[in-house]
């Protein structure tokens, strides 16, 4: 199993186990991500199944696909992808997340290659993937064009790139910053810088500029009555997701 990859000091294990429990607590600090996760996974699984002609009712439908999860955090997307049979590399620039993700994968009986690295470093090393997941990262990077170009380089020809982010308009300011950070306290204050948010048109231009062809986009819409997220064809006003393919 994963024992060889757990290189942490045994004294630290208890601390990371507690942090793993926190990452995976649906009512805890990462509650908004847990609420959004089924909706994100529905989009990701259907895009992968459609692109690679896989049957989601089969056992391990993503077997044979090599997938990169950039900004993997506690492994909220890496674990489901591994469970569906994909060979997963989880990358995070925040070193503290990695032992947490490794311990939780071990508890879940999953083999996931978690690395403290960046998209640019992986691309420079010549790594190649069938699928790159780039979820809620692009609004945090300093140079989105350079970053998306690295994502494109990480894909095999014809490979699938899925990217989600937050729109920039008065509604997203109200919802994502005032609502999520200040009122609901879902996210720590200062999590987002509104001027870094990207409109769908800007993102499509950046994606094309990186050598990827956009093929789909959907909104993630929160319904405050059912208290659930769902996918929308039309409403991309706050959170949205895109799929694009590497020319090849």
């Amino acid at each position, binding site marked *: *199993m994963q*024992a060889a990859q757990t290189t942490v000091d045994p004294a630290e294990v208890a601390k990371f186990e507690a942090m793993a429990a926190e990452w995976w607590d*649906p009512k805890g600090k990462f509650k908004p991500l847990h609420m959004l996760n089924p909706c994100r996974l529905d989009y990701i699984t259907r895009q992968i199944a459609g692109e690679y002609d896989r049957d989601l*009712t089969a056992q391990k439908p993503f077997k044979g696909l090599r997938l990169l999860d950039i900004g993997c955090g506690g492994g909220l997307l890496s674990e489901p992808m591994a*469970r569906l049979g994909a060979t997963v590399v989880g990358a995070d620039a925040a070193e503290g997340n990695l032992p947490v993700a490794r311990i939780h994968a*071990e508890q879940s009986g999953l083999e996931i290659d978690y690395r403290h690295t960046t998209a640019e470093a992986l691309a420079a090393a010549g790594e190649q993937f069938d699928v790159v997941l780039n979820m809620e990262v692009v609004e945090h990077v300093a140079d989105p064009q350079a970053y998306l170009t690295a994502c494109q380089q990480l894909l095999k020809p014809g490979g699938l790139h899925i990217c989600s982010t937050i729109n920039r308009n008065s509604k997203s300011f109200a919802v994502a910053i005032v609502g999520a950070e200040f009122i609901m306290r879902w996210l720590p204050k200062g999590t987002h810088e509104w001027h870094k948010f990207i409109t769908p048109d800007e993102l499509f231009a950046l994606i094309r500029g990186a050598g990827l062809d956009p093929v789909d986009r959907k909104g993630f819409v929160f319904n405050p009555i059912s208290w659930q997220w769902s996918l929308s064809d039309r409403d991309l006003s706050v959170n949205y997701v895109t799929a694009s393919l590497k020319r090849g």
Partner: protein
Amino acid sequence: MDNPDCRRILAGMTYDSDILIVGGGLNGPALALATAQTGLSVTVVDALPRAAQAQDDFDGRAYALALSSKRLLTALGVWGRVAEYSQPMLEIKVSDGRAGEGPLSPFFLHFDHAEIEEGPMGFMLEDRFLRRALAEAMAEQDAITLLDGEAVVSQDRDASGVSLTLASGRVLRGRLLIGADGRKSGTAQRAGIKRTGWDYGQTALVCAIEHDLPHHGVAHQFFMPPGPLAILPLPGNRSSIVWSETHDNAAAFDALPDEQYMQMLRPRFGDFLGQIRLAGKRFTYPLNLTIANNIVADRLALIGDAAHGMHPIAGQGLNAGLRDVGALAQVLTNATRRGEDFAAAPVLERYQQWRRFDTASLALATDLTNKLFSNDNPFLRFGRDLGMGAINAIPGLRRSFIREAAGLTGDLPDLMRG
């Protein structure tokens, strides 16, 4: 692999089945069938030996299955095995009565299935046929293992799974534990889940009767001062009786020999079905409401009476349990298709959110209905007669009651959509 932590973790990851279900009554086997369809493996642990449940003769127990429940059983491959033994409920008549007055109260509610397009709003089915069909359907599934005559001694839940220790000393390991072990659920108790509830001060007397005249598929509910009396049509000239009385009265009636028991029943009943005779055994069920304060915990979910034991006033106990089955199976299936750990807390929380409001409101509604109708106060009687007359006079309102009785309202699981 000489690291003890690693050995402990690996030992914890060998599973006998994905899902361990405690309770082999009706909801447990239904959930086993529903989850096996998703490709999950299931072990059902039942404290009763199978032989004790396999009754060939009619013992007098029967269920009123709502249309939504029939659809679920159809999707599970069970309905085809019992359809020929079922009796469609074509009409429901609800009236206010006093012992001796029978069904002749001037105000009554009349629900006719012809007013909704989906067909009969429910079906009566004897307990023995439903149990046998569930057992046969389970036996045909390789993914389902049944351990009968095995009591659970202890349970243990950790980050990787659940362990059950059985009285025989056998230990089972799974990913998710389901408590389908009734209103006194040991699974819930061992998990420290507390319950809320109260006693209704009533006991239900249950039996089946034969009668000379046909029932024409009509179900009757009379609201009598001591408690409601339901007459539910079975195939042929037979009906199932659910007769609620105060604990003291019920104990007195229960102690009577059959013929005197029937003498007590007849005046409550009227003569619209002609002569009536007892068919099968007599049962008593003390009526109480017991709702689990939480229906999920880490790697644990409760279904059926273990989650919500309610007043059987409208036959909603089993129907509510089968809604749990449909909802939980759908949540687990969707999670599996997304690659989520189906036993993880965020997934189980979706089941709890879906079912909690529905069951709490249904339990309260049946409780209030009973409190309102089990009463001989003349003002209350007049008020409810007016209310029933109003519901009856307004077709839209009446149709919404029919759809409620057919189990077609609320957020229906896919397996119940037909």
